């Protein structure tokens, strides 16, 4: 079915097409690093603080740094409005986000320290956890934290019987399966993998491959954003 190159999705995309994606780094004056991402109608901002001394101190570890994450949604990010109190879903995404980013960071270089990554979803449109991870990787780089590789994240899934890339909110809700995946392209490593729905082993394999392809494309957008920032900075410093 996916061979049908004529077929278009509700939002006009081909089966293997990403939503429009825009990433900007260095958007928050206070944070040590930050990034803003728009992916379809998703709007997410991520701020990074650290490496910095851990408070409270008893949580610090003598031989390694700690990565702390928070995934949080603004009350107005969904319709209907959501309560500001963190949900069980927020707790789980907070956890997988940490696991998705940790493999990219040389935590052992920061004993007794913490790196705090805060993702705030301003508008949600399906795939917020992937977009948050993608933006967080850029924010970490923007903070000057050396990374083993950028982490790019993207989902694939099944909607009306077809394998598709980067599900939007509608496809996520009414589709048959959703598989969010995070990938470090240069290391060939998967750092996030979840799946919800029903897929045959063969479909699953296609989803994983498609999501990895999506991550590669996103990786280019991430690099572009960092380059832009770097050049802008050089210009400013040149003044």
């Amino acid at each position, binding site marked *: 079915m996916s061979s049908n190159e004529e077929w278009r999705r509700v939002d006009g995309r081909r089966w293997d097409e990403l939503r429009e994606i825009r990433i900007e780094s260095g958007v*928050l004056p206070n944070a040590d690093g*930050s990034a803003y991402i728009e992916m379809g109608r998703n709007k997410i901002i991520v701020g990074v*603080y650290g490496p910095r001394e851990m408070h409270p101190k008893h949580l610090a570890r003598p031989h390694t740094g700690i990565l702390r994450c928070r995934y949080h949604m*603004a009350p107005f990010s969904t319709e209907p409005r959501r309560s500001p109190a963190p949900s069980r879903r927020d707790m789980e995404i907070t956890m997988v986000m940490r696991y998705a980013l940790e493999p990219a960071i040389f935590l052992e270089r920061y004993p007794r320290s913490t790196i705090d990554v805060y993702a*705030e979803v301003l508008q949600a449109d399906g795939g917020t956890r992937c977009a948050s991870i993608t933006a967080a990787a850029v924010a970490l780089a923007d903070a000057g934290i050396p990374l083993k590789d950028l982490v790019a994240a993207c989902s694939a899934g099944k909607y009306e019987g077809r394998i598709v890339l980067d599900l939007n909110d509608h496809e996520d809700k009414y589709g048959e399966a959703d598989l969010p995946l995070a990938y470090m392209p240069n290391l060939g490593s998967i750092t996030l993998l979840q799946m919800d729905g029903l897929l045959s082993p063969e479909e699953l394999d296609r989803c994983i491959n498609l999501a990895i392809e999506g991550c590669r494309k996103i990786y280019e957008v991430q690099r572009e954003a960092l380059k832009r920032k770097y050049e802008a900075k050089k210009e400013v410093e040149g003044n």
Partner: protein
Amino acid sequence: MKSGKGGFTSRLKLKRIQEAISSGKRLDGRGLEDYRDIRVKTGVIEKADGSSEVFIGDTRVIAGIEISHGPPFEDTPGEGILICNAEIVPLASPDIEPGPPDEVSVELARVVDRGLRSAGIVDFSKMEIIPKKTVYVINVDLFVLNHAGNLIDASTLAAVAALRSTIKPIFEVRNGEVVPSGRKEPLEIKSTPVSVTLSKIGGALIVDPTSEEEDAMETRLTITLDEKGNVCAIQKSGPEALTPEEVRKAISIAASKAPEIRSKIIGGT
């Protein structure tokens, strides 16, 4: 390079700020009664019924509006409800921890709320859907993304701009139940309050403090005014006292600055 982005301001810096202000100057070159650059955007959250983003210098606040329905408050059974909520999220400043709202964000929400409500920004008496049972509920959610001082003025501005941009879903009663009619209309705005916050530093009054100036300030006074020049909310906050003369002076500065700030939303919609 990242100094002065919130967090602890050194004692030396605090002293320099106070001395400069005592002699009529500010470290960033502004005059005592100058605001930083103010920018207002609306419609930034397309899915919300209304929204805005306000920048005052590096301070950045988003406001989102949702119009829903619910039971009225017990003591105002025929009136609609407006609820302000404010979150200063941890990416806004190195000093903010994740957690339930603290004193500062509770005060922020309540001062903005009082300004909107006292100014009669909407006509609460026209918000009934089922008499004494169901009324329109306006949720105003303030979200501080970067805290570089003067959150109250930025938040009031964001709330008012977002409300002015709001397209209200019209609810109707079908078989005794409240359901969306599918129709929408602009929310009718009756007033445009703005708040002006003054800080007393080194004995002088300044407007629009940065975070560093807030660290150095002795006390703070917020005055919210409507477009007719009426005062619709006051909040003194901070550990030191003010003389009646200082209060009078602050009110008069606020009255003179309010139109300038209001022009950012009247113009910006």
